[in-house]
């Protein structure tokens, strides 16, 4: 099979589909896109099924050479996309032909960009998914980040329907985000003063932010828990270890852990967190589980209703 050949993989480029589900019992993480919304648009622009495989580009620095004719789109962080040296807009499909040189520069704002191709990249499936989880050595082309020389297999396509997402519908990335939280897990063992401190403080992203978890720095939060049994961890869970500094657990998290948790960030806000960088800030806002469900349904339906514009 032909496809796109990696010439430079950049800082961290990973094949990701919607994620690997149903295998937590043997200790496998989910993987999948850190910013599901940008990932959604990358696939929608190429008329792909929702969870088709894309390349998640962290910060940037990716270059590729096309070995076939197809079309691509790049969404997410504000990177400069060039085709044969010419800058091209993001959030839009572009026809490419054999020999075309594609580059994705370093992001000026935001942190994760998504490269999609018509029909999706055809990566082998492990446990039903192509999602790369480097810590587990599972998914992608060989369980690792993309390497120079790798061929990203895809189908040729010449039936092009060029389309774009209008600017007013594109997410805007900044250096701050409010993360909505469903209180849960051990929340009752955090004194009310500590909970108020947590929800009224600003936290900074530390240098230790990766696909497993985001370590934050700010007002320390104390709980009355000294020791607890390890238990299942869901996406977005906020661990508070003994030093009181919160850790938000992301797609490649371990499946079980023994630190107290004050609640979990809702999934649509994790994408905002994933677009921030060390030094950027967040604050947390508690919402009820009923609100979280309404927000989920509204968000899902709103995305579906947004039209693409032919171009």
């Amino acid at each position, binding site marked *: 099979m032909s496809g796109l050949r990696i010439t430079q993989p950049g800082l961290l480029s990973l094949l990701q589909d919607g994620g690997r*589900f*149903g*295998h*937590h*019992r*043997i*200790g*496998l993480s989910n993987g999948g896109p850190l910013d599901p919304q940008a990932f959604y648009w990358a696939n929608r622009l190429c008329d792909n099924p929702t969870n088709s495989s894309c390349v998640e580009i962290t910060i940037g620095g990716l270059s590729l050479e096309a070995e076939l004719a197809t079309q691509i789109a790049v969404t997410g962080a504000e990177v400069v996309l060039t085709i044969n040296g010419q800058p091209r807009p993001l959030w839009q499909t572009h026809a490419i032909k054999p020999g075309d040189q594609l580059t994705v520069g370093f992001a000026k704002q935001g942190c994760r960009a998504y490269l999609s191709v018509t029909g999706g990249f055809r990566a082998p499936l*492990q*446990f039903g998914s192509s999602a790369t989880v480097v*810590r*587990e*050595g*599972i998914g992608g082309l060989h369980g690792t980040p993309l390497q120079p020389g790798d061929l990203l297999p895809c189908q040729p396509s010449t039936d092009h329907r060029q389309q774009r997402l209008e600017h007013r519908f594109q997410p805007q990335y900044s250096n701050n985000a409010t993360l909505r939280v*469903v*209180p*849960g*897990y051990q929340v009752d063992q955090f004194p009310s003063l500590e909970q108020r401190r947590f929800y009224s403080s600003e936290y900074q992203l530390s240098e230790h932010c990766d696909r497993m978890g985001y370590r934050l720095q700010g007002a320390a939060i104390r709980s009355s828990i000294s020791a607890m*049994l*390890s*238990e*299942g*961890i*869901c*996406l*977005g*869970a906020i661990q508070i270890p003994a030093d009181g500094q919160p850790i938000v657990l992301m797609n490649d998290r*371990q*499946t*079980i*852990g023994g630190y107290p*948790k004050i*609640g*979990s960030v*809702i*999934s649509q806000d994790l994408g905002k967190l994933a677009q921030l960088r060390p030094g950027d800030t967040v604050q947390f806002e508690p919402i009820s*589980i*009923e609100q*979280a*469900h309404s927000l*989920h*349904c509204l968000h*899902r339906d709103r995305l579906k209703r947004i039209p693409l514009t032919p171009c």
Partner: protein
Amino acid sequence: MRIEIAGENALIIYFADHTSPQISAQIQQTCHDLQVALGERLIDLIPSYASLLVLFDLDKSSYFEVRNTIQRVLLAQAEHPPAAGKLIELPVYYHPEVGPDLEHLAEQAKLSVPEVIKLHQAVEYRVYAIGFAPGFAYLGEVDERIAIARRATPRLKVPKGAVAIADRQTAVYPAESPGGWCLIGRCPTSMFNPAAEPSMPVDVGNRVRFKAIGREEYLSLGGELESTI
């Protein structure tokens, strides 16, 4: 028994504040029952020592519906005591050659090396949880006399198949990884193989026994040796 919210699409059932073979069996039974009762609405389950995390599909279900289903399943269980888990036997080559902490453990426990080996095999363990890495099964509970704390400085490299103890837990490392547990032997059975079906020989709630084997049998079963750890 409590059911708490964990996240927007996650509920966690706390069965007790401690662990025991009975609780482990009940958790395994609940996993099975919830798979049947929730069907397509279920995304995944994470059983652990004394809890079960239930992840459900927000597009197909709601918090109230899943909570009610869990309550119904737990009530119905009261009439059916859980079945004993499947028993799996794992062969172990116990020897300082592959168990660099074996002699230290014996010394600290004021026992001989053969006594330590005997005590490790004397217990029928339960798989209380799987996590840390794919295929890493936490087995409990180790005889108090050979319980030993984690190493102050974890090893950067623990080989695949290493049989280890930490406090009252024991495990077989499914792949080479860093680790702080004390190493007493090596198991030739693969604990995690992504290409195999099933990919793991054990599941949460199963029972496990260790059986001592000699160096030759270890090698004939596919076990590996390397010069240094």
